[in-house]
């Protein structure tokens, strides 16, 4: 395997990892704080994508500049995350935080199924797409191979911004400190005057928005179809489990491992491409059952 191929495989791997990270970090963030494994995360991903594409198609059809499709991606993600995520937390999750985890998973799974069908009702089953953002940024050339700037520059840059932003927010702002405090011990945090309910609410919206953003950003590169949410929830769970649930930096490392592993597989042994995320996950979990960065938790009695 020559140096060029390695560079090319790295490019593909990083581009893929960036998208996976954006979705998985939302899942792991929500789990870290709320302790809920949110299956409906996959729906936020799909609905973010569909909403972004509908908004983009509307804008271009109405004769606006195609560059407006870029802000449309973000607006769509925030809209889905805030409205749908907000409603879900307020109306459902708030009632079941003290219930068993199995029940919580079942409730989010039910929401996932409902939203899957809502999506089919609204957008039907024909594939949707919107490639304006991808085409606007054009291509860059590397060793004679052209890559889209959108996938090789824009997406990784955004992933890094999200990673650093989340780190800074959690470690260096008051709101972040409140979230960490609630994560550590909800009762003690409430006792010193932190509104834990609000922290949960905000965290859930942030996590849901990240999923929707992942979907919106993926939209220009792919065709939207029924079932895309289910694909993504499985993959992001693999990332989160490999990293250790609740680990934000870990999610970045795990996403990168999976992205690079997958693209190397396409170059060396294409048959293994599909298996890579799961082989990595199993490999990691055998040696570190709490994930790469997860610490074994003490059970509170």
């Amino acid at each position: 395997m020559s140096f060029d191929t390695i560079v090319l495989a790295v490019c593909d791997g990083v581009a893929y990892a960036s998208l996976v990270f954006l979705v998985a970090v939302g899942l792991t963030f929500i789990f870290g704080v709320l302790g809920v494994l949110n299956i409906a995360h996959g729906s936020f991903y799909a609905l973010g994508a569909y909403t972004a594409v509908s908004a983009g198609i509307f804008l271009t059809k109405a004769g606006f500049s195609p560059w407006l499709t870029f802000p449309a991606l973000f607006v769509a993600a925030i809209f889905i995350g805030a409205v749908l995520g907000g409603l879900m937390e307020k109306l459902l999750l708030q009632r079941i935080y003290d219930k068993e985890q199995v029940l919580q998973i079942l409730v989010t799974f039910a929401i996932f199924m409902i939203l899957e069908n809502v999506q089919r009702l609204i957008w039907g089953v024909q594939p949707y797409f919107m490639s304006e953002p991808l085409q606007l940024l054009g291509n860059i050339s590397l060793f004679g191979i052209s890559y889209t700037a959108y996938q090789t520059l824009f997406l990784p840059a955004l992933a890094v911004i999200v990673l650093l932003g989340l780190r800074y927010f959690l470690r260096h702002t008051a709101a972040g400190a409140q979230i960490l405090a609630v994560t550590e011990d909800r009762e003690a945090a409430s006792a010193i005057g932190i509104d834990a309910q609000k922290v949960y609410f905000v965290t859930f919206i942030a996590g849901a928005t990240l999923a929707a953003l992942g979907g919106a950003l993926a939209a220009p590169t792919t065709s939207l179809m029924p079932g895309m949410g289910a694909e993504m929830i499985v993959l992001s769970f693999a990332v989160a489990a490999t990293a250790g649930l609740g680990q934000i930096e870990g999610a970045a490392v795990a996403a990168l491992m999976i992205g690079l592993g997958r693209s190397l597989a396409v170059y060396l042994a294409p048959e293994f491409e599909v298996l890579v995320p799961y082989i990595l996950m199993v490999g990691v979990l055998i040696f570190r059952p709490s994930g790469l960065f997860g610490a074994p938790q003490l059970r509170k009695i």
Partner: protein
Amino acid sequence: MMLRRLAAAAGLSLLGLFPALAQEKPAELRIGITTYTSGAASVFGIPARDAAEMFASEINARGGVQGVPVKLFFVDEGAGIETLMTEYRRLVQDQKVDVMFASISSGVCNKIAPLAEDLKVVNFMWDCGTQRILEDDKYNYVFRTQANATPEVMAPLLYLLKVKPDFKTIAVVNQDYAWGRDSWAIFSQALKVLKPDVKVVAEFFPKFGAADFSTEVSRLLALKPDVILSTSWGGDLDTFVRQANQRGLFKSSQFVLPLAESSLQRLGNDLPEGVIVGGRGDHYFLHPERIGDAKFRTFMDAFKQKTGAYPIYPVFHMAQAFSALEAVYAKAVTANGGKWPSHEQVAKAMPGLTFQALGRPIEIRADGQGIEDQLVGTTIRTPKYNFDVLDNMMIFPASKIMPAVGEKSEAWISGLKPDILNIKVDTFKHAD
């Protein structure tokens, strides 16, 4: 009490026997249809269902099949094979359907064919592709009102060999499931026989429903194969074509896309000119031999009016199932001296049946397989449509590009001779 029950049971069984003996015209002809209304394959299933509803109301407006109105019962193939088998039984045993159209998926057809035979219900495999079912086993109630994978893959291959005979390397990007694997097996085996010097430089089978082909595209850009084959369909094909086109892969390689007829309208101008495209038969909304037919045109426009898109191949397949149904009932009624035929008589009338739907006439062979000609063309752009249409079309006579009754595809392919390239094909330019 006991006696009354017995009498009721006897009465019921008599009632059940009654129509079979007297063969009176039933109140309605019940048709069960399995199609995808959920999942990725609903890109085929939903247009086919829309078409089925249109055909049924058109038939009923004419007074029905031999004077008997039709009634449709749909089952979603996306619900999973177990549910589907249960629903299939329920339709046949409880709803007493007269004929089943099943199905889109080859995996489903594999399971349904023996079931139909057990239940003695006439089953039209209206869309599934696998050639194995009727080649491997003998069925009395299972028929295919369309071609199968062998001619559907052979036609694009022969087209490629005719228009671009001097390629040296080929790569494949197919979906990782039965159709993706089987179609490549047929294509590569036939290619090895007909043009043994071609080198296969890459074989990719990305996951069914994959959202991203960037890495595959990068590798293909580096390998620069002369020809890239993909029998993918739906969102997978759309994504692959867009990602490949954006990065210039169409400039360095000749694409062969045997199922892209079903993606033309969605892809719009993202599909470049000069791509070899097929549609699993002579299925094309601008069919060069049928376009002059007023009925053909009226249906194409009516379908576009109703659904927002022109018909794609599953719509043609559905039309064939309905045409076969009308034709076989006409034949069976005549054979039965004008009286309504039993299901067994209908099944007996199937072999040798000829019918015509929206393409060329189709014949059902002795083994139940349909002989359906194959249309392949190359994409061009015209001002009239905002998506690519087909030019340099060839229609291949199906009987020449598939094994004879009793012969299996594998054996037939290994015995291919280069003179298969000389079979007479009809050629057409784009005109509209």
